[in-house]
């Protein structure tokens, strides 16, 4: 009994240790951007919004699927499938798991820009998404 309780507590503790908060991603990307460019001025929600709603030489922008108002649900541009809101203020599950965040930035930056996003771009997008209520 005691063992199972402590195992349970251990499991809870380890889950908590792996879960991230949206602001953690903002901070981590900003820190990475600073390391890459000592003159970096910090994340900008305005720049993030511009980045989010602009085309980058390909067919889609972030807002094609996530809409230009990311507190609302979007739809997949091709399949029309509903995509739950991306802004953490509207969807508490967003940006809480490193692996998931890494996976989607990798996929979606490839789709929208044809390359990986820079730390600076990700920091700006995070700042924008955290600013919308």
């Amino acid at each position, binding site marked *: 009994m005691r063992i199972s309780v402590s195992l349970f507590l251990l499991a809870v503790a380890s889950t908590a240790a792996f879960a991230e908060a949206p602001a953690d991603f903002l901070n981590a990307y900003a820190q990475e951007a600073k390391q890459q460019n000592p003159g970096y001025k910090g994340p900008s929600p305005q720049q993030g919004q511009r980045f989010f709603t602009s085309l980058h030489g390909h*067919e889609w922008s972030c807002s094609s699927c996530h809409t230009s108002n990311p507190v609302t649900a979007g739809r*997949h541009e*091709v*399949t*029309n*499938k509903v*995509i739950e809101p991306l802004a953490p203020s509207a969807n508490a599950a967003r940006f809480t798991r490193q*692996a998931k965040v890494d*996976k989607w930035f*990798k*996929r*979606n930056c*490839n*789709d929208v820009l044809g390359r990986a996003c820079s730390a600076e771009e990700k920091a700006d997008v995070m700042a924008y998404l955290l600013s919308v209520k």
Partner: protein
Amino acid sequence: MKKSLMLLSGCLLAAALPAHADGKRYDVRNPAYQAECASCHVAYPPQLLSAASWREVMNGLDKHFGSDASLEPAVHAEILRYLEANAGRRDTRAAGKPQLRITETRWFVHEHSEELPRDIWKHPAVKSAANCAACHTAADKGDFSESSLKLPKGVRK
């Protein structure tokens, strides 16, 4: 004796039939498949393509119908195993090559050839033949039965 044997084999046959024995219901409840694939589109029933077709689809996930759908190796292997284990027995090849789109298979074309407005796939509420749920309202649960079938508003036969 003969009768009971027949009964027994009948039961065995029924038990061996896959979940879609009633025609249009499939089991799509694999958690990895749901989490990874069904975030962008309906969890297409694995039975609708052959194992060879699924292998080909899974081999090209970095360029998945114009989108990067790449997966971590462990998740990739898990989903491929699920798809292969539940793949359809129908041969889904065209010109000797495994087909990648369910909507291009002979079966799909045949199933959707009658009683449909010609421009249905282009209708704003449908957008694409890949959007099963536009008409198959319980497609996300693998339910493609007639009872859950409903044309979107504004689409007329």
